[in-house]
């Protein structure tokens, strides 16, 4: 040890572009630097989060009281379809890709993604896919058959305007971007790791993103096939899903959920990775059971392809198929549950710093467990027969997506904010945001479990004045308003402290992984000049311990949470 190693570079890191100088907007449009692309992904995600959140608030206003007339039914149906589609494809996915392309090269000690131009291509496809989807509002009407867009309701004879065509094109195009970025991540991780960093010692975020990329590559073809067939139906009068002409309604459901259930894991696994980093650094401890956390992600990725039909227990598949998918879905609860206890084991015996990031991570443990156990309810197929397609499932999926994915993403955002912007947020503002968001979230969605159990189906634009319906829905709407306010606080925090927060230094959290080893925050265009060979999944920590960090440890200041 002791000798430093020159950082491996992609064959052509910045092809034909001098982006070192400040060029304003052009610099962003032409960017092939993984950090600029990462930031663009994150900004795109935030933008669509505001839009998707506004749609959610309008939906909740309509549902605040029984027999409300705030939104007409057709508008309501377009809004909830756009809300779901936006949040999955244009908020969660870009946020995950943003953090991935920004931090995967940094965490493995590389200077770029393997294919910088493909990286830019992936981002622009994702963005234009989203814009195309929203263009539908101007072209006659947004898609209105729900985000899983069941046949034959998605056919021309039931949805006349062009919304579902834009939905299909938008998702196909953004899907091409997602596949390109996944290939890029896989090659980057396989080929550009700093010497000494073995594949079985990757930082957990990198490992999860790596596993996730394979999952995505395997899942998207099914969605793309379904969308292509649907476009043939709608534009060229084919009959794949047109039941009146002998097509199959269930074919769509199978094709969609073979993609759709892995997609759920695609948007949660990278969040698991971020949380694994956050729990370690803010507990001042290595992860509890590295091998278990890493292997359980692979188990989840493999099992993900054997569980899709648990979305279809009520379509009349018969009990043989029901039992198979029930067993597979329960099995996936085991590696997921293991992770929760691994994280609890990580904070056990630590010196926990309650930064905003860590607060989200702790809240995640409880909220995701709620989403996890209600998930098991849906794996037990007789219980699913009662609760599927009710507000219970709305509660469940929001506990998984918000309590799980969004909490993880926010923990990651506040953890990496000093690296991306070079500045610290005011922790008091962060705590305000945390409490507003968390209280609002739980008020909005916890009561929806009860609404489902007393018979309220999902996706209804209104409901009769039955006992408790009005009260519980009103509580839910009030919680949603609180979340709306917290969303504004988040935008304010990013805007305000991203520009004029206190300078963060290079390594404010005294962290463990290599992204904190760059000479500046934000990192310079060329991330690293040279680094010592890595040892273990806490490579930067090991370097600091053995004094090979070039004196960076001296500059650390203690951050009081």
């Amino acid at each position: 040890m002791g000798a430093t190693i020159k950082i491996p570079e992609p064959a052509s890191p910045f092809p034909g572009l001098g982006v070192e100088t400040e060029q304003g907007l052009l610099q962003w449009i032409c960017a092939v630097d993984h950090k600029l692309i990462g930031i663009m992904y994150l900004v795109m995600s935030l933008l669509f989060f505001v839009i998707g959140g506004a749609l959610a608030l309008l939906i909740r206003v309509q549902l605040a009281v029984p027999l409300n007339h705030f939104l007409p039914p057709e508008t309501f149906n377009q809004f909830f379809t756009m809300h779901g589609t936006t949040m999955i494809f244009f908020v969660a996915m870009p946020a995950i890709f943003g953090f991935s392309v920004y931090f995967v090269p940094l965490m493995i000690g590389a200077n770029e993604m393997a294919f910088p131009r493909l990286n830019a291509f992936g981002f622009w496809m994702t963005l234009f896919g989203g814009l195309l989807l929203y263009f539908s509002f101007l072209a006659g009407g947004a898609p209105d058959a729900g985000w899983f867009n069941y046949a034959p309701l998605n056919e021309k004879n039931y949805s006349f305007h062009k919304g579902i065509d834009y939905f299909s094109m938008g998702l196909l195009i953004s899907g091409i971007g997602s596949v390109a970025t996944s290939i890029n991540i896989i090659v980057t991780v396989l080929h550009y790791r700093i010497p000494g960093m073995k594949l079985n010692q990757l930082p957990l975020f990198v490992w999860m993103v790596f596993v996730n990329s394979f999952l995505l590559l395997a899942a998207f073809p099914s969605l793309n096939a379904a969308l292509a067939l649907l476009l043939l139906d709608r534009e060229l009068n084919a009959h794949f899903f047109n039941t009146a002409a002998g097509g199959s309604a269930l074919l769509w459901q199978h094709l969609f959920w073979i993609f759709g259930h892995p997609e759920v894991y695609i948007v949660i696994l990278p969040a698991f990775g971020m949380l694994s980093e956050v729990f370690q650094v803010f507990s001042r401890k290595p992860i509890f059971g590295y091998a278990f956390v890493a292997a359980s992600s692979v188990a989840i990725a493999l099992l993900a392809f054997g569980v899709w039909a648990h979305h279809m227990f009520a379509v009349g598949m018969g009990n043989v198929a029901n039992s198979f998918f029930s067993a597979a879905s329960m099995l996936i609860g085991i590696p997921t549950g293991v992770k929760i206890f691994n994280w609890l084991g990580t904070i056990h015996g630590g010196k926990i710093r309650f930064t905003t990031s860590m607060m989200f991570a702790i809240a995640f443990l409880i909220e995701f467990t709620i989403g996890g156990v209600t998930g098991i309810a849906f794996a037990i197929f007789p219980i699913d027969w009662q609760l599927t397609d009710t507000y219970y499932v709305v509660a469940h999926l929001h506990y998984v997506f918000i309590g799980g994915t969004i909490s993880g993403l926010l923990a990651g955002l506040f953890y990496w904010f000093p690296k991306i912007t070079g500045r610290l947020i005011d922790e008091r503002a962060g705590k305000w945001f945390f409490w507003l968001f968390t209280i609002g979230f739980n008020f909005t969605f916890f009561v929806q479990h009860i609404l489902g159990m007393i018979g309220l189906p999902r996706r209804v634009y209104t409901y009769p004045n039955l006992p408790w319906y009005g009260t519980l829905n009103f509580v839910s709407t009030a919680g949603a308003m609180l979340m709306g306010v917290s969303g504004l606080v988040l935008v304010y925090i990013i805007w305000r402290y991203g520009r004029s927060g206190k300078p963060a230094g290079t390594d404010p959290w005294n962290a463990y992984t290599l992204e904190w080893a760059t000479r500046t925050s934000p990192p310079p265009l060329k991330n690293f000049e040279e680094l010592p060979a890595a040892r273990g999944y806490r490579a930067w920590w090991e370097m600091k311990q053995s004094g090979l960090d070039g004196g960076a440890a001296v500059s650390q200041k203690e951050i009081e949470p």
Partner: protein
Amino acid sequence: MSICFPLPQPFHIVLLQAVEDPASIQAERINHLFNHFNIVAALVLLLVIVLAAWFSIRYRRRHGDNSEGSPKSGNRTVEIMMIGVPTLVLAWFFYEAFTVGNAVMPSSNPTRPPDIVITGHQFWWEADYPGSHVVAANVVHLPVGKELLMELRSADVVHDWWVPQLGNKMDLVPGKKNYLWLTINKPGDYIGACSEFCGEQHAWMRIHVVAQSPEDFSRWLDSNAVDASPPKDDLARAGEMLFQTRSCANCHRVAGTPAAGVAGPDLTHVGSRPTLLTGMLSTNERNLADWIDHPQEIKHGAYMPEFLFAKDSVLALAHYLEQLK
């Protein structure tokens, strides 16, 4: 004009109707399983909350303490427990799921003919009673104490039959026949709703089941098996004339008259149903007139077209239909 939706009659008498208040043998089996699940789920959640809270307090960093936490990064016994215990619990639940599932849904390919055939339409329910001539809509009468086999079909898109107190839901898939077994054990009014998003008026595709003693049920069946009663007065006769000669008869059936349409609900006994439009309006002449006059204002997206009837024609039609008890 704005329409004030009155609260239809049956909803007044219904108290909290929930999964937790089963009224059929099938719902009881599922409810029993759900209760087991809820106990275990609550324990798991409690364990996580207690550990998270305890560790957060016990292991919080004291002011000025910049040391590292314990370097321990694993514990073989704990890790084996983390996998072993959930596996055993889930194996138990799989056994329960399998048993309850097979008890509630003995076969997806039954050999005997169904007792009732439910067909889902955008956005209403058709109920056929094979062996009788009864075709009802939206208000579904069923006998108590008998194991019923329901056949479920769809005329257009995917719908879903769900009455929480009566047990499991089942999709109505176009091009496919699905089945449900149902043994109701308490007479009463049970409400439910279409639970698979089926288009613009999915919210108003609600279900009203009237569970009756076998005697009451067969009385109801007999009274609905007869042809429509002839109009009693001149206004009703004028209404019938309009019904037959204008477009109404193309889509609606009134048994005993030439009207034999199948696209819309059977109206032979429409006046005897407590509500219209799956519970949106209670059945009376005024609501019928409003509906015939401007259906798209009341339930936009339903297949009932806006006709340009004169005011007195609307009143005559409503008067006629209200008499179809």
